[in-house]
């Protein structure tokens, strides 16, 4: 994974978050407390501000810096969850790793989110996008798919899983207080994860 590409993704993700403000905000106002967009945007802006520091450091250091920056800027529930993901990936990734290695690090990152949030698949959280994506990524990486086909399939899984959070009953986070009143609403944390993944797929497709 090249530093330039990660930096490019930081910009594209930040732009995508800004472009989708209304959608993220209205999802969070429906079943959360209305601060998700603000927190995510604060995180993506903080990452943009450290771009110069990311230019010449090893891959694992990039992930560590991203994790620490998110940890100290985002707050809320998403801050520690995203931070745990990137800090965990930083421990399991090395310069020049192939896709298969990356998919393993990704899976361990997702696992660290599960531990930090004490959550699992089906709790109507970001994990309902991340777990299916991680599993798909592992299968595709093992079968050494072409990058174009791989990104297309990952994007499809992310899109389908975020839609499926509509029917789930929330058991974690602020939405949990709503219980069945939250059914019919997409989870905002799952939505931002899908947006980030879809944006990275789009960027990968261009390379």
């Amino acid at each position, binding site marked *: 994974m090249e530093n330039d590409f990660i930096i490019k993704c930081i910009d594209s993700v930040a732009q995508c978050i800004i472009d989708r403000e209304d959608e993220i905000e209205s999802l969070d106002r429906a079943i959360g407390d*209305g601060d998700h967009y603000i927190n995510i945007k604060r995180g993506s802006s903080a990452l943009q501000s450290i771009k110069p520091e990311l230019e010449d450091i090893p891959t694992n250091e990039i992930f560590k810096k991203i994790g620490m920056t998110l940890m100290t800027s985002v*707050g809320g529930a998403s801050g520690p969850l995203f931070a745990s993901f990137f800090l965990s990936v930083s421990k399991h990734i090395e310069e020049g790793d192939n896709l298969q290695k990356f998919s393993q690090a990704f899976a361990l990152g997702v696992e660290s989110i599960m531990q930090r949030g004490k959550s699992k698949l089906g709790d109507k959280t970001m994990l309902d996008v991340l777990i299916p994506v991680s599993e798909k990524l592992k299968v595709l990486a093992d079968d050494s798919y072409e990058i174009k086909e791989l990104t297309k399939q990952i994007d499809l899984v992310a899109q389908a899983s975020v839609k499926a959070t509509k029917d789930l009953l929330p058991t974690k986070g602020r939405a949990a207080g709503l219980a069945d009143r939250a059914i019919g609403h997409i989870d905002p944390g799952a939505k931002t994860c899908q947006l980030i993944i879809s944006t990275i797929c789009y960027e990968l497709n261009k390379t």
Partner: protein
Amino acid sequence: MKKFINKTDNFIIDSLKGFAKAHDDLVELNLDPIFVTRKKINSDKVLLVSGGGSGHEPLHTGYIGKGMLDVACPGHVFTSPTPDQMISAIEYCQPKNGVLFIVKNYSGDVMNFEMASEMISVDHQTVLTNDDAAVINSSYTSGRRGVAGTVIVEKVVGSLAELGGDLTACKKLGDKVNLYSSSIGAALSSCTIPAAGKPTFEIGDDEIEFGVGIHGEPGRKREKIKEASLIAEDMISVILKDFEEKSLNIKDSNGVLLLVNGFSGTPLSELYLIYNEVSEKFSAKGIHISRSMVGNYTTALDMAGASITVCLLDNEIKKHWDSAVMTPSLRWGNEDV
């Protein structure tokens, strides 16, 4: 949105600067990262550290001072603070006898304080407050929320820590006060997060949200507004049921502390009216109110509404509730600063 704001991004900083200046005899503000400490730090006592999203003032910064908190770490509005705030504050205070974190039970607060506690080397314990009886199926969800009962925990444990109680004793007392406290709230309006610029939820002119949380999270049910007496009746029945489920006898105690808390958009006259309703109904049920507090102690920005918190008072809790306290927002007992 109509608020006294310069720039939305600077809302919390600008407000904290004013707070620190107004109470410069008691507190000190650190800016990068943000934390507030007592003016005179006593590193020999157990360091009481709380924090959480802003917007609930005076919780937690208003409760810093002798007999209560040592440190508060405010986050952005309704967003938990980040671990670096707690870590820096603890490094700054150099506690010799451990740290007690007092954390309201919200996923964000729990995780950020957890990350902080993993990164410090000093002895520490955490009291998680979850006095909100509105949340049902607590074993199924991430649990009950910490609301106005947190103030009582901070006051009572603050007294013990001031008198030299050790970390284990402080943790134990904090857990007990939390268990002995139950709260339920109702909102008459939504609230507006400055950075969002619009109300968190929609609510009709003739509706109330029963069981609302202090961030405008929806509660148990949306219903038509009715006489205050009937709303108080509903609140009391939730509280009584909660004590019953906790197997605590609300009558078999030294009386209770009744806190009628405003979310900040409801006038004191209405809060006293609620107090009157609750006290009459308690009296009819043989429940003795031996301590009272009425006012805006745990708020939700500009939300109109109120909550009631009942805390059972045993001798230990009563003693520490009555002891001297000197903070910006709670002060009694003629204690020196």
